């Protein structure tokens, strides 16, 4: 008989066999009930003694699977005795922004620096129209159709919704931002435009020590905007930092939630050779896909966790630029390094500016790094087909205004 759709149907016999196999592997857990009960003076009898007296059965115990020996970790080429705390693309910090501040020794301000606010100008109606057209073409009218992730209703988690086809979240954000950068390029004139270049999916890796622990951040930056000249530092380093204090997350440690591993390579990675003339990282665009970036606990994501993610990505970008410029072992920087960061999921935009003052981040005293972050801004309220009509509602011109200001900033 030929292989056909008939065979694809459920074979219940196989399922039952699998069930027997799984049940056979179960082992009783020790909940310490025995010791607790005896401490309270309760007499305990062995259940086997009772059952053995009743009936004796001759049962052959057969092992379904012999225990597989664990892989010997110490033979791995990248095995190290000292464990390292890793942070990767889809990870989130448990305490969000405060934990990120603790790790990177950063102080956060609530507004954007004045040097950027002074550049931001209101957009003309024509540019607003072209921004709206960009949003429509990349979010509503894009004809890309791909199987989207499963829909889940928390009230009835077993219910299967019909799967939808459409534009994936990553594609939406990447198209939108690349078109925005192109528009910025047109609007800001050829002088600024010629000094910038774009790089996709740049992979950065920054290992460092802090308080006798090893850390390694290996992250991809979805769009990296490079420039010929380094960004001017926003705030001069005075002795102010001594009065500034970091927030506390007691009773938790700042290591909470980071994956601990003994297999790692303690190596700096940078996506290009340093001789290139547009070598300074100017702005980074980070995408956020809620189906991939999740909490390990499956709890809902809080807004501080997103801020924390943006801060850590900005820190890695700044730190790798510093190591490119001043050497891999640099600790105290001769000049601060500034990186602008835009974190987006195609609807919500988080703008921040990071200034790296030092890479010596042991303890909580001494020089600290600075970060300026704006609260969330929505690019639009609704962009979709509503009852068969393509609709864009609640367009917010503030977002592109700031992207343009970031692009023009020198």
């Amino acid at each position: 008989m030929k292989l056909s759709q008939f065979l694809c149907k459920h074979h219940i016999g196989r399922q039952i066999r699998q069930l027997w196999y799984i049940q056979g592997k179960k082992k009783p857990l020790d909940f310490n009930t025995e010791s607790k009960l005896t401490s309270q003076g309760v007499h305990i009898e062995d259940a086997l003694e009772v059952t053995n007296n009743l009936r004796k059965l001759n049962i052959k115990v057969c092992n379904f699977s012999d225990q597989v020996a664990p892989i010997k970790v110490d033979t791995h080429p990248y095995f190290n005795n000292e464990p390292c705390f890793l942070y990767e693309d889809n990870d989130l910090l448990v305490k969000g922004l405060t934990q990120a501040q603790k790790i990177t020794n950063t102080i956060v301000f609530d507004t954007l620096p004045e040097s950027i606010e002074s550049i931001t100008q209101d957009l003309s109606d024509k540019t607003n129209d072209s921004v709206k057209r960009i949003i429509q073409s990349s979010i509503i009218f894009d004809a890309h159709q791909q199987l989207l992730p499963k829909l889940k209703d928390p009230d009835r988690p077993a219910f299967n919704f019909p799967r939808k086809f459409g534009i994936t979240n990553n594609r939406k954000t990447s198209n939108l931002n690349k078109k925005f950068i192109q528009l910025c390029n047109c609007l800001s004139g050829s002088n600024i435009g010629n000094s910038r270049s774009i790089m996709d999916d740049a992979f950065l890796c920054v290992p460092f020590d802090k308080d006798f622990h090893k850390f390694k951040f290996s992250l991809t930056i979805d769009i990296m905007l490079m420039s010929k000249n380094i960004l001017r530092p926003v705030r001069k380093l005075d002795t102010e930092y001594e009065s500034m204090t970091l927030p506390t997350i007691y009773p938790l440690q700042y290591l909470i939630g980071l994956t601990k591993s003994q297999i790692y390579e303690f190596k700096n990675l940078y996506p290009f050779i340093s001789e290139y003339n547009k070598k300074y990282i100017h702005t980074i665009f980070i995408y956020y896909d809620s189906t991939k970036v999740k909490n390990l606990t499956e709890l809902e994501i809080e807004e501080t966790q997103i801020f924390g993610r943006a801060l850590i990505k900005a820190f890695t970008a700044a730190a790798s630029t510093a190591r490119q410029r001043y050497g891999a072992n640099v600790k105290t920087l001769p000049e601060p390094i500034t990186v602008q960061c835009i974190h987006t999921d195609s609807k919500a935009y988080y703008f921040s500016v990071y200034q790296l003052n030092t890479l010596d981040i042991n303890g909580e005293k001494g020089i600290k790094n600075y970060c300026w972050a704006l609260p969330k801004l929505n690019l639009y309220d609704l962009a979709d087909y509503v009852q068969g009509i393509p609709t864009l509602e609640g367009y917010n011109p503030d977002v592109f205004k700031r992207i343009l200001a970031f692009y023009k900033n020198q």
Partner: protein
Amino acid sequence: MNSYKVNSRLLSRFNSLISQTQRYLSAPAEVEIDESDKKLFESYIKPKVEKIEEDDVKFPPIIDNSEIGKEQRKRQRWFDKIRQLGIVEEKIFELNMPKYYGWKINKIEEGVLPYDPLPQAQYITRTHLANTVNLPKYYDSVLSAEELNSLVEKIKNQVKDALVFEFYYRNRDHEYNSEQLNDKCFMDNVLAKNVSQQINSILISNLCPTNVHLIDTQIDIEPRIEAFWAFGGLEQPEKYKKFNQFCNPRIHRRYPERLNQYMKYIGKPILHLRHNLPLKEIISLKDSEDEKLDIPINKFDLRKMGYFQSRERATIIPGFWPGDYSEFGFLSYHSIGHLKNRPEQFNDNVDAIIAQAIFGSYSWLYTQACYQGFSTFQDPTYPLVNQMILTNGQLWNFCVYQLNTTTMHQDCIQTNPRKNICWVTDSMKLFDRIENGEVKGFNEDVLRNLIKFYANVPQIKEGVNMKPYLEKEKLIANIEDSERRIWLEEQYKHLLSNRPRHKLPPEQYHYQWIYVRKFNHFLPWYRKSPYDKGINVYNRKLDDHTPKYIPRCLRTNRKLKWGKTFYPEIEKKTPKLTKNPIFTLW
């Protein structure tokens, strides 16, 4: 003159009888005809007494009543229906109506080309290949030589910078795995993508102040291109011909020489630039009817060449849904990385590049024309132009394509005089090599061609009705009846997503073939499959299904058990209440 009003349908029944009598009447005079016989014939064909003056005579068209003629008229009725439908999406929907499980299509994918693909590509798309190595003369008037040189000087260093960065400074070792890094085709595609994006942004930012149209262009990154068209110039496969001749002689008699075959192109361009106005035509429509423009004829079945067939939906997508503001193509970038996977003994890279250019340009322009209301059965009333760049970062090919015709189905393949025209330049090297961060042997001619493409300004076609076959509504989104609008929108997107039917088509198993078809061993109560009943499953129509069931709690009218359907129709009828579900034939 006497004219006879004859019922043509009645007459056709007696064709054989009449021919007999004609023979009988035209026989030598020696043969005598009985008067009783004459009366009998006259009783069938009664001469009408009405007399009409000569000036007012209007003869009805003479209709071919043979089986082939009937089939042709049936097809013509379908083409007219597609022309009369007033909404873009409905026209595309209607193309899918005859097939429930999808059309059997010849699949042409970008970058998958067999040996010697050029003649077939030209024949399938009715394309004449211009006999030049340079761009058409129209491009000499786009910019003056001084402007061009000054722009080249301005841009040259930036392009060099970008090239050096992508080919020399960029370190990709830790971004891809070793398998990908060793795959030359994959790495070529990556380089082509990055270089073309860089050069596109450099050109736009530098040309923007002088060329305002570039601000309004819309950029698509890796858009989805799918085109479906009917082609009637191929030979009927020998296998089917013989099968019908011996097993199904009635059908064989009815089949014409040419049959429609359906083509589907799936493209993967790197970049698209679109504009709300079309580019200016290079030659007029009348010039495209010139007999000197020749097309090679290659009637082989596509499977013989190395393409494959599959069953898919008729999808027409130029990268965006209908309703977008900028709906005309301006420029497209394609990668030629696939040449690295071509066997060396083929030695036909030049032909492969031209074939890729022809398929890519034709499909994109044809899909744009479909959004203007034309289709594979209705020719566009004005030409459309596309500019195309094929590159792997180092080699650059420039192509200009003008779409004049889209109809090439079986009824008009021999009568249609129009041809599409394609101009392709030779492969040009942008640079020889890169050493120690410096570009050696930089070729400025490539930049000149690039600038000419970007400086070509799209224009309004004055005095031309851009959408002659569309109604006022034009799109689904403008339909007033909300129920119909929502249904059509949902179904259209579902259809074009290319997902298979929930229930797959019935299959004939081997045991059925042996024990039922060949040697009937089964008892009378054996449940017959459609194959046993002689039904062709794949001829099922799209609307041949039970409508959606409405649960009792959701009904507004108690008797309204089944949901409405709004399949495209010319006369907008009010949908009937179906009391019983429409069951399919099996």
